[in-house]
């Protein structure tokens, strides 16, 4: 593991780009190979080696998804993906075949993340449930409920984001209207709620619908701070025309300790990662283009911005946190600190 002193944000650069016809929505590092797993808008899961010159993607086979693949995690020899078809699909990474597909939610599944213990995965969906699943058996362990199904304006709400603290003690979930719930995994009870209403824009006059929502959550390494991402208020909600907005909470106390809007770009924060070994966040997302921002949580300042050609939907790091892989609109990218 390299430390922060080995990383110069200003030297962070794209080293590879592989274009595609589809939209890459989710990404995970293959546990055993130098490849990434990609969830696509064509309902497939692919394996791609971004560290070599090849561009061929290997399609995982079998009874998989029927809609956008919006989340994927890899644990041991398996990967678990989620999709807008409401399914969780288990994949054998050696044979590259589907092992199991379960109807996990009645509406779109937005994200799936793995618990640090390697035993469970956690999914969130627009049925407004967060569900915890046993990786080995595929059985549901528990269902966490409490997010409202409807917005205050009588539209269906959406449960976009989920994060697990590094020690596995806490799960955070975030919804369309800016409501965050934090759950204790030892009792599966709700222990805190937070509000980030600026991330939800309701236009009551010009267009009469809404945009936004909490799209990303991340716990700090010690679990005390929760980073919440989305987009700020938008005047013209025809477009993702707001500033990427980050809010940091001391969630146990319920205090918002910092808020930051990136004035160098527009769009929505799709993912926030605490960069291993640093106090920095890597923030990514976009509007019709993409952005990468390195944000220092100590100085509360952005250290570096990068723009990309396509909206970035998801990112993952290699095992040394030296390379960053991006799933983006009609492309996959690899970035490096040097």
């Amino acid at each position: 593991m390299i430390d922060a002193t080995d990383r110069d944000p200003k030297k962070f650069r794209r080293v590879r780009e592989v274009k595609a016809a589809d939209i890459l929505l989710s990404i995970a590092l293959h546990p055993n190979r130098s490849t990434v797993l990609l969830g696509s808008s064509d309902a497939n899961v692919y394996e791609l080696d971004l560290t070599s010159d090849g561009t061929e993607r290997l399609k995982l086979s079998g009874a998989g998804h029927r809609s956008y693949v919006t989340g994927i995690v890899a644990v041991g020899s398996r990967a678990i993906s989620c999709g807008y078809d409401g399914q969780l699909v288990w994949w054998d990474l050696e044979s590259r075949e589907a092992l199991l597909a379960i109807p996990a939610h009645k509406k779109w599944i937005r994200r799936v993340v793995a618990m640090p213990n390697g035993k469970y995965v956690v999914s969130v969906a627009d049925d407004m449930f967060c569900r915890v699943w046993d990786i080995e058996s595929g059985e549901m362990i528990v269902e966490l409920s409490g997010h409202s199904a409807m917005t205050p304006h009588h539209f269906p709400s959406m449960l976009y984001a989920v994060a697990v603290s590094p020690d596995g003690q806490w799960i955070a979930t975030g919804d369309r209207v800016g409501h965050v719930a934090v759950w204790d995994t030892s009792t599966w009870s709700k222990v805190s709620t937070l509000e980030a209403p600026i991330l939800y824009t309701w236009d009551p006059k010009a267009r009469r619908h809404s945009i936004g929502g909490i799209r990303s959550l991340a716990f700090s390494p010690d679990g005390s701070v929760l980073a919440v991402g989305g987009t700020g208020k938008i005047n013209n909600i025809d477009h993702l025309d707001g500033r990427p907005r980050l809010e940091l909470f001391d969630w146990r106390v319920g205090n918002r300790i910092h808020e930051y809007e990136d004035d160098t770009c527009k769009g929505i924060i799709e993912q926030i990662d605490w960069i291993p070994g640093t106090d920095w966040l890597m923030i990514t997302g976009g509007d019709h283009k993409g952005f990468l921002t390195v944000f220092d949580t100590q100085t509360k300042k952005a250290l570096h911005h990068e723009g990309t050609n396509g909206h970035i939907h998801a990112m993952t790091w290699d095992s040394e946190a030296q390379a960053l892989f991006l799933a983006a609109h009609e492309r996959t990218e690899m970035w490096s600190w040097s």
Partner: protein
Amino acid sequence: MNLNNPYFALNRRRWMQAASLGSAGMAANMSKISLIGQPAFAEQLQRSGKNVILLWLAGGASQLETWDPKPGRLTGGPFATTKTCIPGIEISELLPRMASRLHRTAIIRSLNTKIADHGQAYELMDTGRTKEPGVAYPHLGAVIAHQLAAIDSKVPDYVEMYTSTEGRRKGTAGYLGARFNPMFLTESMIPDNLTRQKSIEDVDHLDRADLQHFLSKSFRHRQGNLAVDSHATAYQRVRGLMASDYLFDIDREPQSMRDHYGPTQFGEQCLIARRLVESGVPFVKVARAWWDSHGQNFETHQELCADLDYVMSALLDDLEQRGMLDRTLVISLGEFGRTPQINGSLGRDHFAQAWSCTLSGCGIRGGTVYGKTDDDGRTVVDGEIDAGDLFATIFKALGIDIDQEFMLGSRPIPIVDFGSKPVLEVLA
């Protein structure tokens, strides 16, 4: 008198037909005229009582997330399809209630209107033809009001509700004259200035109307032009319009009916629309803005389709249960559709080459799909129609003669654009 006034021209023709048969009570007693077999009056009688509710999907709804889904294609987006009550026809899963009611609705999947700019496309879909310098074409609502309104109607002929500000534009009667301009409701659903001022007693109000009528009568005879006639007609209708304010008050509906239409503003407006057509208003436009989803198209359609599906199905149910659906045409239409190509913001942009609309109820053969787009929804491959053809279809469904012409000066202007043909396949 100005015989070139198109409104007059049509009614003059009818008057002459009636006069030649010695009927003096033309406007007052239509049933007697129909009995003597005059085609023009038989046609009017056939049309009488018919009306239209236009659900205007302002900004341009996506045909791919509504009536012409393309599942399994990259252009198709993430939504699945749902089976409808008509075997072999599937629509977007975002419209489950409409799926079970498709027997009342015809889907047209083959509009190619070419214009993908909001302003020009509005103009096209409002009038059924491209803009022409020097000719103020009337909007659809005005033409239908002109054709269907009773001469002595006590209720508005043409009501538009457009609450959102984006894309808001008032309809116009163009060369048909101010009589057929819409009552345009924006901020409030209760029309402004419809109630008598408290400072004026009712008897005083009546006296003023009599005085106005007395003074204007000879003036009208001397001037005899469209503007003066329209002005006088509007005055004559004041009392009736004032008495119709209750139609806009949905508090008069039982809570169960309000629940039936749901809690959204669009639902409340469609309930008002039903009250209006029930009372004889020939044309009501309810604009549901704003569908212009350049970013986050799928989230936007999850919200707006939920509203459309619930309210449109509630409206059709209500009209059917009241026995009104066979004389009420419900149209869902916008100015264009949206691109099959999904942009970087997961949005869809303006697209007019291959998009959809629906017609339900009066004169429509429900459970039909007309036209076809290619596998990716990029082009029409069968049954292409334009705005003029759609207007001809709407008129035909209402029993309006699509061969008639308005005289604008010495220039005949057909009620539908030159060469337009109705889609007979969707007509009952």
